[in-house]
């Protein structure tokens, strides 16, 4: 998918045409093929195809409103795609309900944080450790809570266990989202805009956490609207605009890509 030497307009077509032809169910841990999502007259995701390889950290990049979260929503069962296919571990999971995907090891965080405001930080995480059964007393045994505490410590919320979500700072809410997702024991974690609104030191801390998760065997897809914070973290990036893929490759390739630079108004965004 070399896009370097050609003009922006042809690149655009090439990229999506290539993608449409190349992907099959077993091309990665998660494979998205010809995914389209329309809301009324608006096409939020437009014939998007890409694959996530096991063990990598993939950046999923695009300007605000490019359709990144909608893509996530289609992959994780929040929305049913208008057309297209999602494969996870070689199985067609298009339109499969969120909780089933989570059960199979595909977890996500929400860009607009979704904590349970009626319980503490550790209570939020405990819920994600609760088995999906009607009759269960796991909460009454100490082990679940112990694991929830460990999970909170893992993401750096160890000193805020008994606070409510509304008492957490922005970075804390993000950590809580991560703790809840990690508590479901995922193999693939989709992280929606983790670096938005974070200070530099927090970005570094978080990048470290992601790297350590990858060492443990978790595959990560990290969404962001720019690449600045991502460059050192990710192995590969997929860049989308208006719901369609405009580039794919290593961070360096992406940075030098004229189409991407065009999309970000002469490279401002990068």
């Amino acid at each position, binding site marked *: 998918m070399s896009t370097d030497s050609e003009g922006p307009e042809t690149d655009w077509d090439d990229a999506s045409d290539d993608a449409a032809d190349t992907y099959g169910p077993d091309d990665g841990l998660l494979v998205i093929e010809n995914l389209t999502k329309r*809301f*009324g*007259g*608006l096409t*939020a995701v437009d014939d998007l195809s890409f694959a996530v390889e096991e063990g990598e950290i993939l950046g999923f990049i695009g300007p605000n*409103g*490019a*359709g*990144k*979260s*909608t893509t*996530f*929503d289609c992959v*994780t*069962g*929040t929305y049913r795609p208008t057309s297209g296919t999602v494969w996870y571990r070689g199985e067609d999971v298009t339109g499969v*309900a*969120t*909780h089933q995907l*989570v*059960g199979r090891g595909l*977890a*996500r965080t*929400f*860009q*607009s944080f*979704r*904590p*349970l*405001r*009626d*319980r*503490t930080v550790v*209570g939020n995480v*405990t*819920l*994600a450790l*609760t*088995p*999906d*059964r*009607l*009759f*269960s*007393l*796991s*909460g*009454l045994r100490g082990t679940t809570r112990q694991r929830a505490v460990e999970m909170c410590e893992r993401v750096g919320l160890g000193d*805020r266990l*008994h606070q*409510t979500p*509304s*008492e957490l700072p922005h970075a804390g809410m993000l950590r809580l989202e991560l703790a*809840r*997702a990690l*508590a*479901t024991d995922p193999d693939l974690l989709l992280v*929606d*805009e983790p670096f938005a609104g974070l200070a530099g030191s927090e970005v570094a801390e978080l990048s470290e956490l992601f790297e350590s998760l990858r060492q443990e065997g978790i595959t990560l897809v990290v969404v962001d609207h720019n690449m600045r914070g991502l460059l050192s973290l990710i192995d590969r990036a997929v860049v989308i605009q208006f*719901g369609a893929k405009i580039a794919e490759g290593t961070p360096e390739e992406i940075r030098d890509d004229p189409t991407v630079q065009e999309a970000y108004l002469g490279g401002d965004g990068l």
Partner: protein
Amino acid sequence: MSADATATRGLVGLLDPRRYGIRHQAGVVGLVLLAVAPYLVPTVWVRNLTIALFFAMFAMSWDVVSGYTGQISFGHAFFFAIGGYSSALLNLELGLPPVVTVPVAVVVTVVAGLLVGVPALRLRGPYFSLVTLVAPTILLNVFILFSDTFGGELGLDSPAPILDFDDLAVTLVANYYLAFALFVGILAVLLAVTRSDAGAVFTAIREDEDAVAASGLNPAKFKVFAFALSAAVGGLAGAVFVHTPVGNPNPSQLLALTVSIEVIIAAILGGMGTIVGAAIAGIFLRLFQLYLGTVEYVVPVVDTAVADVDLLLFSLVTLVLLFALPGGIVRWAVHGGGAALDNIRGRDTATDGGRDPPDRDALAAVRESWREDVAAMQARVPGAEPGPDESAGGDRR
């Protein structure tokens, strides 16, 4: 919200071991009082207490689905009526004894509840509530349409009693204990379910269904379970009710809109999502209502006896209580009692560093999720302006 959250405590506070002792003691004292009540009060009040116990069961039935999961049912009388009418009809038409008809009625109620609930629970927030509002109305119209079978607006004849003795007083006391046993049984089952993991999932659904799904739990499964459990409890209470001297299978006792509404008021006044609150407020609200009906004092200016305007007065008092204690009596008592104890023991809750479980008003949670549900629904309507843009931007709220 955050300041309030640390200062007060709510649902989770019910499980706070610090206050376990006193609250449980109070509960036991209350149950013992109920157990010996027939020997303490005149016979007519034994009858009223029996009615109140059944009403409390109805309120608990509402609370386990609506109070806990936030799926607000405006038509819980649907369950009471199906339970009561099924049992009565099986007894009157086929001559089956109550010991057979009551369990069958419970099954019928659960099946009817699932027929309405499974499709309705796919709808969120206010859209679910509208379906529950319509369901008992349809049932009432069916009853009126087929008056030969269902007795129309007047209802059916009294079916065979479960407990009947020659002496009326003995019969009333016996039936009181029947109601009391049923009340304790239902209370125990509902407390067990809501204090297990399922209860934590129920309240999480009330907060945010998407977050529950993202935690790997199937919200639909837990909602249907709560709904079926509620139907079983409501159907059971309704079925036994019609076989006692205090209840009859007629719309005004089992199916009227006022029945559905009073149940909601009781559960909210007691403390939504606590079970105990619905039980306590259910008993006291019905007793208060029955008491007002006996007051013969004539109000001077309007020149009317209290007994003649009992329903108006009852509604006014409930209204005031709803404004004064939106979190419910049980939360208020537990919080007030807890704070008082902390003062006595010299414990300063404010410096406890967020130790206190958050007090999240259940009604506020429902209100918030309704707002989101309506916004999400509007976003899905093709051509609606803000919807698609927001979705593409990634923020569905």
